[in-house]
């Protein structure tokens, strides 16, 4: 298998790509359904059922991308998996308990006796909040090289807040797409508020990462990189401006462009993701371990890659089927 040159070089890169793709898909997909949970405090009780109905058929498959991402880290870069997860022991535990609360609240809130529903709604919110905040905190610490100092923890707190607002923003755009009437109008207002969080979060990460890492500074602010990379921040700013304009005009009379904020939000997530990926390449544990040093044996990676290449298109195909079956405005979910 020397088809593409030395497999010890391209296999780790291919797996880093797959892992990155899984994280990106996870952040967008679970981002919107976590976001819907985060918006619970702003919604009337009657609206909560529709909000959950808009994510009900999808959340489980969305979370599977997290298992996929962590699984790829586990199997392709086992030493990095150990180093990252032991460093993030407590935030991971908080996230896991959050995911547990959230996942079971989906089911319990509808099946438990009516007087208990409020408690499960609260569990859904708290679970979504724990998950989003801890993921944001982990992102911040990762950017800061997995070190615990006062400064890195403060930065982690800022990214925790930033990611939580970003999730609620994309959750609001999802609701604009999937609902109508008063709830849709509210969702537009929520999305407008969320934009500021995005500006703040993106700004903080963009400003802080080059400052803490001379390597990242060099990667972005040397010639000719600075000109080649300029489209990234420019496109992000343009998207934010477009979103602002669009949200002021939504919802339209015939519900046209209801998809637009969600598409823009997704594009923003993608741009931010590529910015981060560019900053960290080739490190998988920042400043400590490159993806080439951390990779598993090539023959084991090859076995997984063959399976992945065959199966991933199939996964995408039936994910599209699921989204097609439940397309359109969210209606009450029923078992019959």
């Amino acid at each position, binding site marked *: 298998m020397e088809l593409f040159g030395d497999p010890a070089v391209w296999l780790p890169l291919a797996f880093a790509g797959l892992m990155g793709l899984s994280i990106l898909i996870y952040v967008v997909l679970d981002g919107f359904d976590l976001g819907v949970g985060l918006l619970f405090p702003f919604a009337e009780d009657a609206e909560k059922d529709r909000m959950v109905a808009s994510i009900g058929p999808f959340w489980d498959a969305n979370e599977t991308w997290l*298992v996929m991402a962590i699984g790829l880290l*586990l*199997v392709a870069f086992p030493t990095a998996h150990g180093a990252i*997860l032991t460093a993030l022991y407590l935030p991971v535990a908080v996230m896991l308990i959050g995911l*547990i609360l959230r996942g079971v609240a989906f089911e319990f809130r*509808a099946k438990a006796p009516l007087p208990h529903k409020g408690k499960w709604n609260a569990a859904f919110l708290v679970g979504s909040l724990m998950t989003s905040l801890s993921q944001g905190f982990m992102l911040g610490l990762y950017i800061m090289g997995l070190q615990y100092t006062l400064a890195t923890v403060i930065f982690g707190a800022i990214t925790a807040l930033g990611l939580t607002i970003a999730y609620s923003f994309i959750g609001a755009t999802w609701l604009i797409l999937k609902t109508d009437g008063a709830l849709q109008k509210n969702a537009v207002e929520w999305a407008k508020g969320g934009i500021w969080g995005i500006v703040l979060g993106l700004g903080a990460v963009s400003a802080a990462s080059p400052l803490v890492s001379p390597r990242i500074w060099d990667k972005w602010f040397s010639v000719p990189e600075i000109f080649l990379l300029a489209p990234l921040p420019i496109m992000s700013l343009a998207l934010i401006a477009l979103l602002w304009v669009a949200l002021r005009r939504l919802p339209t009379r015939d519900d046209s462009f209801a998809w637009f904020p969600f598409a823009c939000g997704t594009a923003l997530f993608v741009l931010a993701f590529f910015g981060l990926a560019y900053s960290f390449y080739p490190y998988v544990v920042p400043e400590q371990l490159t993806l080439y040093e951390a990779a598993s044996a090539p023959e084991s990676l090859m076995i997984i890659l063959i399976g992945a290449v065959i199966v991933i298109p199939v996964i995408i195909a039936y994910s599209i089927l*699921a989204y097609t079956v439940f397309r359109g405005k969210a209606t009450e*979910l*029923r078992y019959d």
Partner: protein
Amino acid sequence: MDTLILSRIQFGANISFHILFPTITIALGWVLLFFKLRFNATGDEKWMQAYRFWVKVFALSFAMGVVSGITMSFQFGTNWPGFMETVGNIAGPLLAYEVLTAFFLEAAFLGIMLFGFSRVPGWLHTTATFLVAFGTTLSAFWILVLNSWMHTPAGFEMRDGVAHATDWMAIIFNPSMPYRLTHMLLASGLTVAFLIAGFSALRWLMGDKGAEVRATLRFGAWMGAALIPVQIFMGDLHGLNTLEHQPAKVAAMEGNWETRSNVPLLLFALPDEETRSNNFEVGIPNGASLILKHSADGVVPGLNDFVLEDGTVKHPPVAPVFWSFRVMVGTGLAMLALSWSAVFLMRRQRGPEGLPKLWLYGFVGMAFSGWIATLAGWYTTEIGRQPWLVNGVMTTAQAVADVPAGMVASTLFAYLAVYAALIVAYMGVLTYLARKAARGEGVPTREAPLAPEATVRALQPGE
């Protein structure tokens, strides 16, 4: 307590909580497919009512299984980094194939199975039900391949302290895999049989004696009666396989200290590792020799063979393995007695009316007996593998993460609190759903409590 024992308790607690729910969903998926196919074939509404009731139990169990499973995939890294660093080349691909082939399949079609009934054609809904059942079973296959490999590793070589795969067929079809997988799938079937029989008996006792409950009560009892003898036979084969590959575990299960012939089958004993002997032994003479070697003077390995010259103990802790094994076998025998007598009584009287109240209460009491037997069985085999994590390759102590014990203790406490609350909520909601169904109120959908008349919708066979 140190980090090692706390981490072991934490992983043990997580995996114990997790396994409860796949144990239900693996077999319940197939049972739901059976209900759907019976409905398609007969057009009898009772099968669709049974489907609608049990699909809610499935949805709830599935969600519990998913979220507790995510926890475990992270804990490999947070608590046991040494595991993947040493055997990642083998465990990695197996876990990856589980995610790729099974998790996405289940997750994508679950939505259609739960909420797609009126949105997609009947054949697609039936297919979705099939694919979810198939996905859960496939997931069980991959994870049991990995687990079995940890007990009976094969098809690999060690290079610089890291395992490298040499023969994937030997890894997948490692010596204990066929036995362990079959034993677990049957355990899932029995768990579901007694769960269905138990909750149907509960509804019957509440006065719900309609066609649906009648059908599911009979179904559960028959399923239990049919599977339990197969399971006992399979368990025996699995035990013989363990004797061949992990004699120390069998010695602990039998509470046998010295390698000798004519070993009794102990019904009761308090194994004492200090004196290396049993107190208060009650046994059937020659029993263990007969079961394990099929002859009264068969030689059974003893625990003392697994103590090194320097006094290092290389066998598992005896009392937990000894007792878990007895709890599992005892539960199995209770299942045998209840299901066979119930089937006999129902056949004589042509239906559940033939069951005395005591039997109905028996089924209610045994509704979660599958959980007890499954957990006891897993404790037997997993504690029985100690001190090894991968038998003969690496010990559990070598894999543990270097995190402060206080951190492990605090998260353990948090997990335990959440799990205890969720188990109570789960059992409570199942009982609540049964009570609602018994009152004929219909069962609420995920979104809104449903009007009673809406539960019965005219459906055509094959829809």
